[in-house]
Structures are given as C-alpha cells and as structure tokens.
C-alpha cells in the first residue's frame, strides 16, 4: 500500500518572489490526487518540493517519518527510492537509449541479473506502449513518447508514491485518455499514492479521488473530488469551466479595474455556456483488481461528510452504493460556515 504524504505549512520563495505559502494538505495513502492551478502558480515547484529537489523555507513534508525538507541528505536519498517522478518532458538521459534509461534505476539500486532487468523493463515498456522502440535515443522520438518513457522509468522500481508533472501536456486527446486510464490501472495494480499536477480538465474530472487547487500563492482548497467539482468558489468554478469570467486573467491575476468592468458588462464569449456536471470517476480496466483506494476513501469521506459543503455532500451521497446505510441528515455545514466567518 502507498505511503501517506503529509505537507504542513509549506512556504517557498525564489529571492523576494513568493511562490506559495502555508500549504497544508495530506495525500491519503494509496489514493490518486490531482493538483490544479493556472499556469505559473508553482505547481511544478510544489511537486519538486515534495521530493526534496526544491527546499522550501518553512514547513515540512513528512513521508514515512522523513522530512523531505529538512532531514539529512542521506535519509532523503533513501526516501526518494520510494518515489517515482514523471517529469514534464520525460527528463530522459540523452546519451542512453530508452532501454538503458528505463533500466537505470534497476542497475543503480538493485543487484538484479541482466535477464531479470530486461524482463522488468520490457514489461514496463509494454505498459506504456513503447515495445519496439527500446533501442532509440530520446532525441529520436516524439515528445509524447518521451513522456511515456519517463513514466516507465518512474515505475520501474515499483514506487509507493508516484508524482506526475503534467502527464497530458503535448499529448493528443486520445493519448491523454489512455494516459488517464493507465494511471488509474496503475493505482489498481500497485496501490501507490499518486499526485498528478495538471491543468487538463478531463483528467481533473475523471481520474482523481482528491483534488486541490493552487491560486495566488495559496492552496485554495484540497479535499475529495466532489468538493472541487461542485464548488461555487469563483476561482475553482472559473477554472473548471474554462471560462474567462472570474478572478483568473491572462496574466495570473486580473486587476480590480478589469474585474469591475467585467462585472458591468455582459458575460464573456461562448465559453461560459459550458456547464459543469459531476462525471463518474474512471474504473480500472476490466480484469484488473479492484482499486483498494476506493473503499478506503469511501470510509474516510463518510467520516468527514459533516464538514463538507452541501453540494459536495449531495454528490457524495448520490454516489454511495445502496448497500451502505443512508447517512443521517444534518445541517452542520451552517455551523461550519459561521465558524469560518467570526
């Protein structure tokens, strides 16, 4: 089973430019989470600080007892072996062919025989649909193939935490759909904790168990997928509908004048017409084991149901299988709201 990643109070600046501050969230063990956010909000930096490549000034990232921010370098290197990170453009070693690239972690960290390595690598290549290309150099293949090869390399050590940096960028819609399915199948097979950073709405709607969103240097929210997908928060609603109306502008933030003008004028363009509805989550390909995360998440979500906004509650309750006892109706969200605004 995957490992829980507990982030608390994380703050990162480059020089005087603050990227994000005070991010607190927990990636539940074995579940798939997605981090959304407009371009340039530091999603990749967040991913890199989870694995210790970027050192935030404050806060901690606890993975199996190791703080990826402040622990000793040796412990961090050891902890990284439980991670698989898929880089935005694959980050393959340009001087090695695909086979050697994917075999690299095995050769560095294990004492497996070459025949064994070949078996594992071919298995992973088949998983991402690259059989037959193993002799090619990274410079000779397309961006999408590099990405898939990067995923294969991230998977080769059977990681317990998988981080994907924009698995969709540079892929056509069909390949993106395949990648989404691949990620869900992976989760069913190895039950790893997964975090996907993306701004692809299809992935966001269908893949994750949990979702979060970064905007204006803050974590807007993080919680079960239903919370974001039904959220009326202007930023979230705008982002998930791909509309131009809302706080997100072409430069990261619209200024107050633009917003005021927008409020007066009619709604912008046809994109507003896109209505959001909660689409069902992807299921693993038939024949694969059931995703254990689904059951765990259900228990977890049911326990926290009282704390969720009403829309999310309704969505979750509608989704719960009939064999679970109906949940008592409560109106605690009102209390919750009043606590928020003293």
């Amino acid at each position, binding site marked *: 089973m995957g490992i829980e990643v507990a982030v608390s109070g994380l703050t990162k600046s480059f020089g005087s430019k603050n990227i994000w*501050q005070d991010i607190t969230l927990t990636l539940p063990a074995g579940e798939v989470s997605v981090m959304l956010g407009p371009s340039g909000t530091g999603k990749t930096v967040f991913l890199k600080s989870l694995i210790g490549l970027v050192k935030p000034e404050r806060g901690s990232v606890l993975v199996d007892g190791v703080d990826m921010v402040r622990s000793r370098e040796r412990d961090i*290197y050891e902890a990284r072996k439980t991670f698989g990170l898929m880089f935005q453009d694959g*980050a393959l070693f340009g001087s090695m062919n695909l086979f050697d690239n994917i075999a690299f972690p095995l050769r560095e960290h294990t004492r497996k025989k070459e025949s064994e390595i070949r078996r594992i690598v071919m298995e992973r290549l088949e998983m991402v649909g690259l059989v037959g290309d193993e002799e090619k150099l990274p410079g000779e293949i397309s961006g999408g193939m590099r990405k898939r090869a990067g995923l294969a390399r991230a998977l080769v050590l059977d990681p317990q935490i998988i981080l994907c940096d924009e698995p969709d960028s540079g892929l056509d819609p069909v390949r993106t759909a395949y990648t989404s399915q691949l990620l869900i199948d992976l989760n069913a097979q190895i039950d790893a904790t997964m975090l996907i950073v993306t701004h692809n709405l299809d992935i966001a709607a269908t893949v994750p168990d949990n979702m979060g969103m970064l905007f204006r240097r803050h974590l807007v*929210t993080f919680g079960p997928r239903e919370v974001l997908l039904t959220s009326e928060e202007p930023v979230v609603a705008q982002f998930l509908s791909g509309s131009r109306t809302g706080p997100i502008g072409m430069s990261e933030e619209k200024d*107050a004048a633009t*917003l005021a003008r927008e*409020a007066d004028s009619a709604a912008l363009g046809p994109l507003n017409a896109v209505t959001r509805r909660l689409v069902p989550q992807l299921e693993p390909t038939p024949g694969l084991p059931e995703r254990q995360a689904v059951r765990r998440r259900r228990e977890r979500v049911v326990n926290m149901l009282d704390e969720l906004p009403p829309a999310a509650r309704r969505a979750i309750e509608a989704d719960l299988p009939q064999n679970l006892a109906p949940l008592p109706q409560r109106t605690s969200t009102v209390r919750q709201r009043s606590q928020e605004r003293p």
Partner: protein
Amino acid sequence: MTATEHTPPPTGGRPEEPAQPAEPAARTPLPGLGFLREPGKLFILALTVLRAIFRRPFQFREFVEQFWFIASVTILPAALVSIPFGAVIALQVGSLASQISAQSFTGAASVLVNIQQASPLIVALLISGAAGSAICADLGSRTIREELDAMEVMGVSPIQRLVVPRVLATVCVAVLLNGMVSVVGTLGGYFFNVVLQDGTPGAYLASFSALAQLPDLYISEIKALIFGFIAGIVASYRGLNPRGGPKGVGDAVNQSVVITFLLLFFVNMVLTGIYLQLVPPKGA
C-alpha cells in the same frame, strides 16, 4: 484535513495578503559579504566531492570513460605546447646566462623553470581548456534538461555518479600528463640549448644535477594534482549551476575556463611561495 480549512474568503476581489512574519534577525547576513556566496558554494562542492570519493559504490566505469576522454583530448596538445615552451625558456635563459657568462647554469635554470612552473601550468590550462570546458558543457546541458534532477529523484546522487569520476579523472590525467610534459619540455629545452645555442651537453646535464633535486619533481606533481582538482571542481560547479537555458550553459563554460585560469595562477603563486620557504635550495 478539511476541505474548507484553506478556503480563503469567497470574494471576487483580491484576497488580502496575510502579514509576512518577520524573518529572524540572526539569519540576516552582514552587508557586503554577498560576493563570498559563490566561492563558498564552490568550496562546499569541493568538500562534498572529497567526501563522496570514499563513498561506495565507486563509479569505476564512468571514471575510466572520463579518464580516457580527458587523456585523449589533452595528450597531443600538451606535447605540442610543451616543446616550444621548453624551447622558449631554454633560449631566453640561455641568452641571458651568456650575457653574464653563466652558460653552464642554463641547464639547471631552464629545467627547474620547466618542471616547477611551466609543466603544471601547461597541464592545468589544457585540462581546463580542453577537458574542463567539455565537462562543464556536458553537465550544464544535462542540468537544463533536468537529467540531473531526474537522477536525484531516483535516489542517485549526481555528485557521486557524475562529478566524482570526472574530478578524479582530471586529477589523475593532470598528474600523469605533468610527467609527460616535464620530460618533453626538458628534452625540448635540451635540444634547443645544445643544438641551436651551441651549449655543451655536459655543462647542461652537470648543472642540472648540481642544482635540481627530487622535491622539485614532488612540488611539480603536487601542483598538477591541485590544479587538476581545481579545474575539475570549477568546471563541475559551473556546469551544475548554469543560469537558465542553452545560453546559460555557454556562459557557464566560458566562466569556468576563466575562473579556473585566475585560480590557477593565484594558487600557483601561493604554492611556489610556500615551497621556496619550506624546501632549502640544493647547494645553499
């Protein structure tokens, strides 16, 4: 973890920035010491590499490949540079010595200059110019393509996997190359002094053995070792920290060569001073 915990006030406008907590005052560096940051990082890298040399597993294959590469790009240029360099020293010292009727000491003077000064410097300049620039460009392009990040993510230290073999290779090639350059330079000096300046072979060799001593060779090799280390470290440091994009890599290569040259001549001065103080000249 609650979903609403992090939700900012749901207003359409700009959320208020929370007050920045004051940075602890003790961490504020003294003003004007910013220029020490880069040398400090360079020094940290040097220490890290020294420590990592003894950490297993040693990357033997990478070391051999790098050694072979560095040797192959430096041997021929080093030999070709050292012959005229030895000749120039021999001719200059020879003509000066003949003016003050001290021709018999030409051999000793030119050989000592050659072994102690010229040879380690030639080696270091070639190592940094030919090998260091290649190392820096290689590491730099790997850095901007995130290959090194990827390596770190896989739990493999790029310092141990890539930098240590390269630095060790530059050091070893520098030490061995220094021996070759010394021999070739000395032979070149001998040839020019004896054949072109009508010096006597006997006097050349006799003065050489009268004034030169074994520590001269030791310091020469020590210098080559230190210069090779500096060249390797500076090239790796600039390669690991290029400033953004392919242009940054080009700049890094340029800087690595220039920084190495500056450091080499300074360190050479220090080492020569220490040597002259510590080791009594022969026959004094």
